[in-house]
């Protein structure tokens, strides 16, 4: 259960202020597949960053499974991102120069769980259909493959919540659809999926749409 309550986020650069989010409240239940839809600059990415514990709100509170993120220090937030959240980015954000296996096991480096890293990573890579590309580096993979590696990385530590920021934005429509199907399947397996997109048709495939515009939520 994710509870966003009267959250504002203000960015300050010098004297000027920019209100990315203005008094936003929203709830997302466990196991939901939600699309956060809005044009660029609407504040949807900011909302995702706040839920993902990459940043803290200027005002309001964010509560995830009973934990109030505002109160966490840097170390606790890092643990929260490591254990609770899996990020999927538009530009994949894989470590260049390191192979698929190393990229997928990256969250395990910072995890206290005692997995056999390779076994766990191969198991997840099978789910996304990339178990035959363990030794390939990102530049040897197609865009769709890279995004599947990054989904595998998001899943490797068994988080409850997947935050996907325009995951299909850099892919052709057919590959984009495959990635969406993969997310759909993860949702069927019990993961909470939050998909951030500006693409109407993609958002409509989600089970619920939260529309964001000018830092606020349209009901």
């Amino acid at each position, binding site marked *: 259960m994710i509870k966003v309550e009267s959250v504002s986020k203000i960015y300050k650069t010098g004297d000027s202020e920019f209100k990315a989010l203005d008094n936003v409240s929203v709830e997302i239940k466990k196991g939901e597949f939600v699309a956060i839809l809005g044009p660029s600059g609407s504040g949807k990415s900011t909302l995702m*960053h706040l839920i*993902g514990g*990459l*940043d803290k709100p200027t005002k309001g509170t964010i509560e995830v499974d009973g934990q109030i993120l505002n109160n966490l220090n*840097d*170390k606790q937030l*890092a*643990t929260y*991102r*490591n*254990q609770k959240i899996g*990020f999927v*980015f538009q530009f994949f*954000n*894989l*470590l260049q*120069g*390191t192979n698929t296996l190393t990229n997928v096991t*990256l*969250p395990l*480096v*910072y*995890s206290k769980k005692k997995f056999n890293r390779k076994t766990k990573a191969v198991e997840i890579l099978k789910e996304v259909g990339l178990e035959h590309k363990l030794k390939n580096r990102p530049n040897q993979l197609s865009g769709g493959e890279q995004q599947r590696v990054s989904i595998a*990385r998001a899943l490797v*530590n068994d988080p409850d919540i997947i935050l996907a920021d325009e995951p299909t934005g850099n892919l052709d429509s057919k590959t984009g659809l495959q990635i969406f199907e993969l997310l759909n399947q993860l949702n069927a397996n019990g993961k909470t999926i939050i998909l951030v997109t500006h693409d109407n048709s993609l958002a409509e495939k989600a089970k619920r749409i939260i529309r964001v515009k000018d830092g606020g939520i349209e009901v």
Partner: protein
Amino acid sequence: MGILLDSIKMAFSSLLAKKARSFLSMLGIVIGILTISSLLSLAFGVRSEVEKTITDLGTNLVAVTPGKQLSEEGGANLAAQFGQSTLTEEDFLAIKAEVIDAKKISVALLLTGTTRVGGTVSNSASILAGSPGFEEIFNLSLDRGRQLNQDDEDTNARVVVIGPKTAQKLFPDQNPLGKILEIRSTEFTVVGLFKKIETASNIGGPDFNDVVMMPIHTGWEITNTKSVFRIAMQAPDAESVERIKKEVKDVLLRTHKGEEDFSVLTQKDLLKVTGGVLDIMTALLGALAAISLLVGGIGIMNIMLVSVSERTREIGIRKAVGATQGAILLQFLIESMILTLLGGLVAISFFTFAISLIPADSPIPIKLNWGVLTLSLIFSALVGIIFGLIPAIGAARKHPIDALRYE
């Protein structure tokens, strides 16, 4: 523990990804550590050489020299080395009469002049006049011939015992025994040849390998003085060295009417004087080496700053998947530390190899010293930590969102 091992692995892979850059910045450290280890080894080498020379002078030695050798602060007084001697035969006789349990009390006079054999002149040989016992105190054993004896003293005999270096110079490849040499227009017969001493540089005294020694009475006769350059004796055991020193001092204070224009020195005192000089030398060499290491360290810091900036996005990714500030800090610190430690290892291996090339009889007093090698490695790791810290803190403090957006 786990994160440490991971950090080491990650450090190696990112250093290997930029081989040329890693190598060049490492080179600065290699040069710095090489400078440190060679200069420090040299300093320690000289120190142990000097200390060995002093201990080799003889056990439980108590020596009286003219003038005040040690200033009140414990430093060396140079005037005492060169001034007119304040010691006389009287002092010698008084000590002999009153300091009863001192052994082998002997006396020596240093003459100025040259030694000549026909056309060959030796300027370097120290001309010494000594009473019997002097050679024993300074461990001067014979290669061949005989030592000076009481008979020579009593008859003011014109005989000398010479050092091996002097013999080689004046009588190259000949047996010097029975040969005649000339000092201050007086002819002397060579009756003995000293054995070669390995640690030849005798601090504050003559080089016993290059020496011509005649009976003390002969010396007094040809210089027409009764002055004395050194009175030396041996304490019966190590415990009584300080007591003998005190007794000698009391006797001399009386014969000198209360004026302390002489010094009574033990080997400990000599070590103290030379130790002070050596400390300054070690500090100077250390400072020189530190500068070269500083330059190397700045190179490391520069390259780490570039690396952190280039890898901003990587830092963002790591933070997004759960890396704490501490983990990022550790990763970059370990990276710079591995760089400098490798540099240190390369430097000391190279140094060890270079030392092994120096022949055993080389005059360079430089030896492998495990303390110096360990110190060098510790220094190289420290440089990695000190100069890697600012870049690593910069990396750890990057905001994850800004870092992820970095192009």
